[in-house]
């Protein structure tokens, strides 16, 4: 297997054929922001936060879905990219009701952390304040659409890792919602195995364990690596 040598932010790096720019960068300590990407799940390129500049390409490319090529020159953190990412996060914060002060994920939220790291100190676009539902029909978990950013990690983990495909995305545009089965209450779902993987991969407080109060919901994603390693290497190791 021939490795690919490329330059990311001025550093020479190597990656395996087919490996994404995102992975190679992260493995070398360059942490490109992301929301929809989660190691172990198929990438969809939806959040647009991991877009990077590739020399010779007129368009920005999603680093999570762009395989490295020999001699590639990539820039992951130019002022233009920073500006785009900041506005994307502001759009997310304004889209639904992300009231950190009363959120179960306050202090352990990827959206919150991302806002901080990108220097978002206030949101310049207007808050939309939509009326979103909260589904508490499941005996163990809750789904608060107010906090959902539609990253679809829950959809993918349920389909690809648990194999249940309880979740999907319904409706369109800003009215899109994560739906259970064919849009029934989560508690009535026939496909949900109550495994809780969706809760653990959710980057915000949209999916949570019942009983968690403000700031108490902590997510554990180590299971993903465990399962993916088991699948790929046939070794059940932590």
């Amino acid at each position: 297997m021939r490795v690919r040598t490329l330059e990311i932010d001025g550093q020479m790096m190597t990656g395996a054929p087919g490996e994404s720019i995102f992975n190679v960068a992260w493995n070398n300590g360059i942490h490109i922001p992301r929301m929809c990407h989660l190691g172990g799940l198929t990438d969809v390129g939806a959040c647009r936060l991991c877009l990077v500049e590739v020399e010779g390409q007129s368009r920005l490319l999603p680093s999570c879905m762009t395989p490295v090529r020999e001699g590639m020159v990539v820039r992951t953190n130019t002022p233009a990219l920073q500006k785009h990412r900041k506005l994307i996060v502001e759009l997310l914060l304004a889209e639904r009701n992300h009231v950190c002060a009363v959120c179960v994920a306050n202090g352990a939220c990827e959206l919150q952390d991302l806002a901080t790291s990108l220097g978002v100190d206030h949101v310049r676009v207007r808050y939309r304040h939509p009326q979103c539902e909260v589904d508490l029909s499941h005996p163990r978990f809750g789904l608060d659409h107010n906090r959902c950013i539609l990253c679809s990690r829950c959809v993918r983990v349920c389909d690809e890792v648990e194999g249940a495909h309880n979740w999907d995305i319904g409706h369109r545009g800003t009215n899109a919602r994560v739906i259970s089965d064919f849009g029934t209450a989560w508690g009535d779902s026939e496909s949900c195995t109550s495994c809780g993987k969706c809760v653990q991969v959710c980057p915000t407080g949209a999916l949570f364990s019942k009983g968690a109060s403000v700031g108490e919901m902590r997510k554990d994603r180590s299971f993903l690596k465990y399962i993916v390693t088991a699948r790929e290497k046939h070794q059940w190791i932590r």
Partner: protein
Amino acid sequence: MDTVKTRLATVWMGGCSGCHMSFLDLDETLLELAAKVELCYSPIADAKEFPEVDVTLVEGCLANREHLAEIRHIRARTKILIAFGDCAITGNITAIRNSVPLGVVLSTAYGDPRFGQTQGVLPVLLDEAMPLHEAVKVDYYLPGCPPSAEKILDLVGSLLAGEPVNGSKRFG
């Protein structure tokens, strides 16, 4: 010592006063602060008119017409305006009402969709509570619900010392 003290004001708008409580949590540090600043206007000070000041901490969002008029008045008389706490920055708890029409909010709380809006008793509520920066220019954002005493001291201290202000360590 006759050094000129920094003129400080704190204002309480559409918030729960928790940010002011956190300010008081500075405890004995307040004494050190008092040596450097003159508290010209505050819910915890007795002043009727908003004077010309150097720094103003504004807690809470803009929820009614009085707030809107007041913040413009304050902005005109303040050199540095700080959005103090999440309500001032994002609307936060106060703005949760925005997803429900105002009339519904009032009738749920008071049984009358126009309660207080016509009698001249209460300030007329805005259709939507909004963060400060939607009405006036804000110089610094001090996040938290409430911001911790240390964070407050951090920001105010830097401003007093004329040092560069550190970027926010968190959002919300």
